[in-house]
């Protein structure tokens, strides 16, 4: 994964906007969601690093994550965002796919 570049990430977000997407998200060990299918309206990035991201979906829906440091537009078209701590542990993840993630 690469360090987040806001402009590049915005361009990657644009690939998913105004369509049905599958979400994977988690924060530390406490919760994860996988393959939530939503109609994504807008994806936003904020901050100067670590970054915050918010997804607006299904007219009334929000998901927000902070502590994001890295991203990757994977070969299979999925957009992966993650926040790593200084020792390589993943604190947070927010991932978008046009197809479901492997179950």
């Amino acid at each position: 994964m690469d360090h987040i570049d806001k402009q590049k990430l915005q361009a990657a977000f644009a690939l998913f906007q105004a369509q049905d997407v599958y979400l994977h998200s988690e924060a530390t060990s406490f919760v994860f969601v996988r393959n939530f299918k939503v109609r994504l309206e807008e994806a936003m990035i904020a901050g100067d690093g670590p970054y915050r991201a918010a997804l607006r979906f299904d007219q009334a829906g929000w998901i927000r994550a902070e502590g994001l440091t890295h991203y990757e537009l994977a070969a299979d078209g999925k957009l992966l965002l993650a926040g790593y701590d200084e020792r390589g542990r993943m604190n947070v993840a927010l991932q978008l796919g046009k197809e479901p993630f492997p179950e």
Partner: protein
Amino acid sequence: MSRTTEGAKRTILAVFAHPDDESFICGGTLAKYASLGAEITLVSATRGEMGRRMGNPPYVNRETMPDIREKELRKACEELGIQELIFFDIRDKMVEFYDSERLIERIGELMEAKQPDVVLTFHETLGGHPDHCAIGKATSEAFRRAQQKGSLFYITFGDAMEAPELFGYTKQDVVRIDVRGHLKAKLAAFRAHRCQTEIDEWVWLPDREALAKLGGHEYFLAGNRSVEPLVFNDLFQARLDR
């Protein structure tokens, strides 16, 4: 294993939850019995794909994790001498939510096929992680239903079972395995699980210093308590001398 090894091959079936359980908790014992000729089958219920340790610096992400951890586990199995590795492909953290009857059945089928002399798994309440407790509970139930001729042992952490009374057990329930001759293999297995151990500096110290951090003994709790164990330093003698 000594005098009891004559004749038939000894077999161990280890049923754990995550890649690395076999190395971090009882890698010395597995390496020891493998070196004595035991055939070991390892089940990892999950691929550990929800782990938070991604390497240091990170080289893993959530979606590459299952493949990377499988490769690292295969390397660890080579280091320890484990011949067969089976994944149940239950999602990490979800073992307790998997159909328990189906899980018991799958483990039972393996017991039937392998006829293990020794079954190793987690204690269903002392396992320390919900996945550990769930796989331990299912394995114990499968063992009871199969009316296995062999022995069931629960793996335990560090030297906690030097004081089994604290957990409601006595020294009679504990088998203590001397693994001092097999710490090199155990350390190699730790290092094979690279994405999980890079965060732990001691693992990557020069061999002599790293080996000094590993305990010389591993401890197992007797799982089938209907019979009194008579020998306390050998998983197989504990069975045969009953």
